[in-house]
């Protein structure tokens, strides 16, 4: 009786809780109210500006004025101008090189963190160590490369001290090398994090099973870990590619103005109040980035990763 009594007493209240409360509003209205705020933010701060950019990209312009029109000239110029072509090529070149380096680097850093660091505590410590570069602002981070890589910088002094070279290395700063170094420095973490996420979902018994089948360390990486980390690699690649293709600050500071990407070109046009060609260039860049992202997602099914 002493055991059964509380059960009996609680019975009516559970019955009441399971009964549906009457809603004052119809369901469809409740749903709209729930999604409404975010939908409005996205509409006014993302969709409308985007539409505006697309519309302006067809406009005519002259010195500081723009005229409503429907011209394809802005687009025609992008595809015919040799200068613009070079900007696109440069951006794609940076994107490809940085993607390749961060992918390889990110994969092995993630692999080491996930499979060779034994305790969770050290994994977290090392993962946080990867974020140390992000403790300072982007501007300081970029500018501090200059005294390090410069003609009379720390690195050159060190190299000179070894007497292996008898004059400072010029390619270190204000060069593609410096730009790519800075990109890799910042974006590798964006590759590492999603790959670590994928790898930590790999069941350890799969690796034991592969070892039992006779696979060595390299075969396990190639046959088990690499295929099962694809979604992380895809998500990381999307983050890195969109960041590199959207950058104009790093390329400006670290190439010393010698190099420029698509966004640098857009910035120059904006400074000159040439809004319609800048808008057209933005649209083309957006299409290219979207195509890349769609391409990546069509190779790798990331829904699985996001759903879990």
């Amino acid at each position: 009786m002493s055991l059964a009594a509380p059960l009996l007493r609680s019975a009516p209240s559970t019955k009441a809780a399971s009964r549906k409360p009457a809603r004052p509003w119809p369901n469809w209205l409740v749903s709209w109210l729930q999604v409404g705020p975010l939908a409005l933010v996205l509409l006014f701060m993302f969709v409308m500006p985007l539409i505006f950019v697309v519309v302006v990209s067809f406009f005519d312009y002259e010195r500081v004025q723009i005229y409503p029109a429907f011209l394809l000239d802005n687009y025609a110029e992008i595809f015919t101008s040799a200068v613009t072509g070079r900007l696109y090529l440069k951006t794609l070149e940076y994107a490809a090189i940085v993607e390749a380096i961060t992918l390889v680097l990110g994969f092995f850093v993630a692999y080491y963190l996930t499979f060779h660091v034994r305790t969770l505590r050290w994994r977290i410590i090392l993962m946080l160590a990867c974020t140390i570069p992000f403790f300072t602002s982007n501007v300081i981070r970029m500018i501090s490369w200059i005294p390090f890589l410069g003609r009379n910088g720390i690195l050159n002094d060190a190299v000179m001290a070894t007497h292996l070279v008898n004059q400072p290395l010029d390619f270190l700063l204000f060069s593609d090398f410096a730009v790519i170094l800075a990109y890799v420095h910042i974006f590798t973490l964006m590759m590492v994090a999603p790959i670590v996420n994928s790898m930590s979902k790999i069941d350890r018994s799969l690796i034991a099973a592969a070892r039992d089948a006779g696979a060595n360390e390299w075969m396990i990486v190639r046959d088990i870990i690499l295929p099962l980390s694809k979604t992380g690699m895809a998500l990381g690649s999307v983050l890195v590619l969109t960041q590199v293709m959207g950058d104009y600050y790093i390329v400006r500071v670290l190439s010393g103005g010698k190099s420029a990407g698509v966004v640098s070109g857009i910035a120059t046009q904006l400074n000159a109040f040439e809004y319609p060609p800048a808008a057209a260039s933005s649209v083309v860049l957006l299409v290219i980035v979207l195509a890349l992202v769609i391409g990546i997602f069509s190779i790798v099914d990331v829904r699985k990763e996001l759903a879990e």
Partner: protein
Amino acid sequence: MNAHSDPGVSGTPVPPAGYKDAPYDVELVAVSKSYAGTIAVDTISLRIPKASYCCLLGPSGCGKSTTLRMIAGHEPVSAGDILIGDRNVTDNPPIARGTSMMFQNYALFPHMSALDNVAYSLKVRGVPKDERRARAREFLDLVQMGQYAERPPALLSGGQQQRVALARALITRPRVLLLDEPLSALDPFLRERMRGELKRLQRELQISFVHVTHSQDEAMALADLVVVMEAGHIRQAAPARDIFEKPNTAFVARFIGGHNVVPGGNGSIAVRADRCRIGSSADQARLTGHVSSVEYLGALVRVGLIGDNGLEAAALISDRTFFAAPVEPGQAAALTWSDEDAHALAD
């Protein structure tokens, strides 16, 4: 079992020298395993005769899985030696032991088809694609999974996944197959069916199976050699019938089930529950008390009894005997048995 007996299919790995002669497939010599101070397996020695079905039986945390992983080479030993056949493999990697392991959750590679899962160990040995696929198909046929060859594990049921895992473990033609709780993820019906198939495969292949389980039914049904483990020690290693008829300690008697452990003249004694009878307290009562439960099991009825001294015991009685003189929970009763059914325990 055509795949195994077919002389046209060459075996991997190549049987080591002395393969035919060694009387034991597995020999553990004073093997210990400790992790950072705690001892998981404490100086155990065990010999598993050639081509036998051995079950490592014990409650969770008794060291049975650790022992299996040490035999497999997935866990280094802290001390002692492991012999497979007559070779000391203590320091060998899994591939150089002649063992193969089937994992608890099957550990099938989710991005590969059933066929590629089975063929994987041939792939790492550099067997050409067509040959390894043909061989994998034979092993899938062996476990009746031929028609599911192209499916990824996610599209297979638990029982089907297990068959694929079995084929994957057998394709290397191991001398010893190691199974870590192979049936625990299956539903009871499937479990009994797979149990029969495991035994059949072991007989046909004439290799040793070492099967880790916490289910005494499974061990009794399958094993030629039951190894009861507790707290890192082997408590008893004997054929199933010997274990059931002559458990050597109270732990073994309780763990194997079906026994009453009661105080005897000097030390405890074990009496099989099916050799006990329920009687009135008058005639040669051994344990008096009252009935605590009555469970109808079909052919048998299990009558639980709580002694006046607080001891719990049970009698397994045939349904005919029970219904001739039924008892109710709460009723005073006594347990009786004859002297020849009492078995003295070591502790």
